[in-house]
C-alpha cells in the first residue's frame, strides 16, 4: 500500500495511514487523561492544551486532507486560528491587567 495513490488528480491516502493516525489519537486521549491526574501546577493547563493541539493537527492534516489541499485552504485555517487568538488574547489584555494600578475599577 503506497502511502497515497494518484487518482484523477486526487491524493488518496491508504487505509493504513488513517488507522495509524487513529491509534495516535487514541494514545493522545489516554495520555491527556493520565496527565490530568499528575500535579503539574500551572503547567497542567499547558500540557492539556498542547496535547489537544496535537490531536487537532492530526485530525486536520490527515483526516481533513489539509496536507494535500491548496495553499488557500491552509491560509483559511491559519487565519481562523489567528482570529481566535485576537479574540481571546486582546480581551485578556483587559482582564489580565485589571488591578495593576491598585485603584478599584481601573
Amino acid at each position: 500500500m503506497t502511502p497515497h495513490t494518484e487518482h484523477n488528480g486526487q491524493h488518496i491516502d491508504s487505509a493504513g495511514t488513517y488507522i495509524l493516525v487513529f491509534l495516535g489519537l487514541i494514545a493522545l486521549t489516554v495520555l491527556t487523561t493520565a496527565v490530568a491526574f499528575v500535579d503539574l501546577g500551572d503547567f497542567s493547563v499547558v500540557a492539556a492544551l498542547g496535547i489537544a493541539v496535537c490531536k487537532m493537527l492530526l485530525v486536520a492534516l490527515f483526516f481533513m486532507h489539509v496536507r494535500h489541499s491548496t495553499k488557500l485552504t491552509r491560509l483559511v485555517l491559519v487565519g481562523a486560528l489567528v482570529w481566535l487568538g485576537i479574540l481571546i488574547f486582546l480581551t485578556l489584555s483587559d482582564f489580565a491587567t485589571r488591578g495593576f494600578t491598585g485603584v478599584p475599577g481601573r
Partner: protein
Amino acid sequence: MITAAVQEREHYLNASYGIKSWLLTKDHKRIGLLYLATITLFFFLGGAFATLIRVEPLTPQGGLVSSETYNKLFTMHGVAMIFFFLIPSIPATLGNFFLPMMIGARDLAFPRINLLSWYLLVVGGLFALFAMLAGGVDTGWTFYTPYSTTYSNSWVIATALGIFVAGFSSILTGLNFIVTIHRMRAPGMTWFRLPLFVWSMYGTSLIQVLGTPVLAVTIVLLFCERVFQIGIFNPALGGDPVLFQHLFWFYSHPAVYIMILPAMGVISELVSTFSRKPVFGYKFVAFSSMAIAVLGFLVWGHHLFVSTQSVYAGMVFSFLSYFVAIPSAIKVFNWTATLYKGSISYATPMLYAFGFIGLFTIGGLTGLFVASLGIDVHVTDTYFVVAHFHYIMVGGTIMAYLGGVHYWWPKMTGRMYPEIWARLSALIIFLGFNLTFFPQFILGYMGMPRRYHVYPPEFQVLHVLSTAGASVLAVGYAMPMVYFIWSLRYGKLAPANPWGATGLEWKTASPPPLQNFDETPVMTHEAYDYSTVIEEVIEVG
C-alpha cells in the same frame, strides 16, 4: 412590478413572471432587487423612528412621548437601521447584483444559499417587526447586561432572535462572495484587474465571516441568561457584565466597517467613472480595504474606555485605533488625487461621491477625537459620539448607497432616473444632513448625554436646530423613492453604457440577460482603462 418590457429582447426581468419566479429565483440579480425592496422598507421604518426621536427633544421636558416609549424608539431605530438596513444595504443589493457581473461570472458560487440568505434576513426582520408591534424593546441596540437580561421587561428575546437569524444572512452572503471572488473570475481577470468595488466586497465579506459568529454566540448566551436565569454575565453569580461588552463590541466595531467598506468601494467606482481616470494609487486603495478589514478587529476596546476596563487595555486599544484610521485617510487622499486633471462630470452619482468624501472626512476626523483617551472619557455616551457615527453611517454609507443606486439604476432597470430631480434631492440631503448632525457635535461636547428623554434647558437651541435639519433630511430621502418608481414607467431608455464606465457590467445590455453575458468575457486591459471605452462612446455619440 416592472410593467412594459424595455425592449422585446429577453433579459432577467422578462425572463419569467409571477410571484413564484421572484420568491424562488436563484438569479443573483433578482435576489439583489428583493434585498433592495426589503431594506428600503426597513430604511423608512427606521426613518420614522428617527423623526420621532428628533421631534421629542424640541422641548427640554419632552412632551411628545413617555420616557418608556422614547427608550423603545431609539432602540428600534438603532436595531432597524443597523441590522436590517445598513449591514445588508450595499453588499446585499449592489454587491449581489453586480459582483458576478464585474468579475465576468454567470452567478454567485452558491445561488441557492444566496436565496436562503434573503429568506434569513426576511425571517429575522419579521421577528424584529413582531417585537416592535408587540410592544418594542427598550435596551438600546447594544443590549448591555444586566439591564437586558434581568431588569428590562420588554421584547428583548424576540428582537435578539431576529438579529441572530439576520446575522446568518450576513455570514452566508460573506461566504458566498469570498468563494465567488476566489473561484469564479473570468479569464484574464487577475486580482489587480478587479474593480475596487470587488476589493471592498472581499474585505467586507472577511469581516462578515469572521465577526458575525461572535455576535451569534453572544446572543445565545444572552438568551440563555434571560430565559433560563443561568448566569454568564450576572454579577450576582460572579459573572462580569464587561465581558458581555467585550463579546458584543468584538463584532459590533468590525460591523461599522461592514457598513463603510462597501460604501468606499462604490465611491472608488463613482470617482473613477465620473472623472474618467483610473483611481489614483489603485494598489494602495485596494490594500487599504484589506487593512481596514484586518485592523478593524483589533480596536473594539475603544468602546469600553470608561467601562472599568483596565487602564493598560485602554491604552492598547487607543493605540491600535489610530492604526485603523490610517487606511481610511489613504483612501480619502487617493480619491481626491483622482480628481486632479480629470474630466469631471456633475452627474448625480458624482454629487453623492463629493458629499461622501467631504462628510466621511469629518466623520473620520471626529473618530480621532473619540479614539483619544483623554477626550473620549468626556465625550463617550454623549451626542458627540452620536454625531460621529451618524457622519460615518448617514453621511458616508447612505450617501454612497444612494450614489451607487443612481449609478447602477440604468443597468438594473434599463431606465434613466430624472437627472434634475436627482441632483436636487442630493443637495437637499447634504444640507439637511449637516444641519441635523453638526449641532450635535457641540451638544455632545457641552455634555448632553445620549438616549436622554428630558434634558437641561441650555441645550434646547441646538436640539431645535438639529430637529429642523432632520425634517429637511426626511424630505431629501423621500424624493428618490418617488422618482425612482416614476422612472420605471416613464424614465428614458438606458443604453448599455450611459456613463462611459469601464466595468465588465457595462459591456452587457441594460437590463442584462439572464446569464449576464452572451459569452463569458475575457479581461484584456487594466481595471480602469478608459481608452477602451472612448471609441464606444464616440460611435454611440
